[in-house]
């Protein structure tokens, strides 16, 4: 019985390492193919403002990363390569953060 448990443990360990490896490969590919979009955001007035917006934007499945800059009034969004990002989802997140979307910058 102990032997079976030991074998099972070894199997799980290998599986875990294998899964991690495949994740790493996926991440590297994602970085290579990521699209970046920049949005104008009005209403951020201090360095403490951006956190709430980034939290909401990162909940969108197509978003890989989000970084807001209150001084430049900009939100930089990195899109997951396997997803299609709808700008309207970003505008909705900006509004739910109590800010106002401006024009898309690029």
């Amino acid at each position, binding site marked *: 019985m102990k032997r079976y448990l030991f074998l099972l443990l070894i199997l799980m360990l290998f599986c875990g390492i294998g899964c991690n490896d495949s994740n790493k490969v996926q991440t590297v590919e994602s970085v290579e193919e990521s699209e970046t979009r920049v949005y104008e955001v009005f209403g951020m007035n201090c360095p403490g403002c951006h956190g709430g917006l980034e*939290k909401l934007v990162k909940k969108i499945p197509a978003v890989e990363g989000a970084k807001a800059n209150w*001084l430049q009034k900009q939100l930089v969004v990195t899109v997951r390569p396997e997803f299609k990002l709808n700008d309207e989802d970003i505008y909705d997140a900006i509004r739910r953060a*109590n800010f106002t979307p401006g024009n898309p910058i690029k």
Partner: protein
Amino acid sequence: MGALISKNASAAGISVDAGLTPPEDRWIVRTQFRYMHRKDDPTPMNKEMDTYAFPLVVAYGFRPDLTFMVRQRVKYRKMFMGGSISRDTGLGDLFVLGKYKLYRENTRDYTFGIASTLGLEFPTGDDDFGSETWDLKPGLFTSWRSGPWASDFSIAYKWNGFADKGRDGLDPGDELEVDLAFAHQFSIGQNANISLSPVLEFNYKHILADRMSEHRVSNTGESLFFVSPGLKFTKSSFIMEVLLQFPVWQQQQGSQLKQGTRLIVGTRFMF
């Protein structure tokens, strides 16, 4: 002791951002240390009192236009009287508040917001630390931001004992609070991820006298006006604020202690 010292003499401080509701799904945990000193006893007893209050506030952005907040404070009080010292610790009343966004305009040049609040204070505090009544507190807050400049205005009325009366049928006096705050933000760091803001607040509080059997209770009711300079430090999801409140004008009814300079040190964590 209660007859000579008002229990509800805390004038709000650090009212910055009051008119701007936080984003949806945003948690804010706010802790404060408040030091209050009472002195100049007009009676021969020569009383003096130090109060240390530790309020803890947890707020949550339930919707973009609706925020809920819960506040509980612990107080430690030290009384000097005729060479002897007495100490007392207790919990204040539990306070629950809802803030609703009435208006918000964000433009390239400025941000303006109006929010209304409705608070309910439960009679859960310990003896001499709570009001012993159900209290309702509606308020109106406005905030203006333009470049590095910020200003906030708030007015709140606390209807003490709106549904009941206190011990021995005491009807505690209502309270009016008016706060005005100005701040100028200096950005620090390459990406301006830190800011330091000198703050100047003007805090007014008027407390009506308590009543019992339709008669005014002596030694209750007062008016306080503070000029309060302070400093606010902001870094990403952390804020630290310090405020000194100087009582430039005050008027007490009867033989109450005078209000001395007060100190507020607070932190805010947002996540």
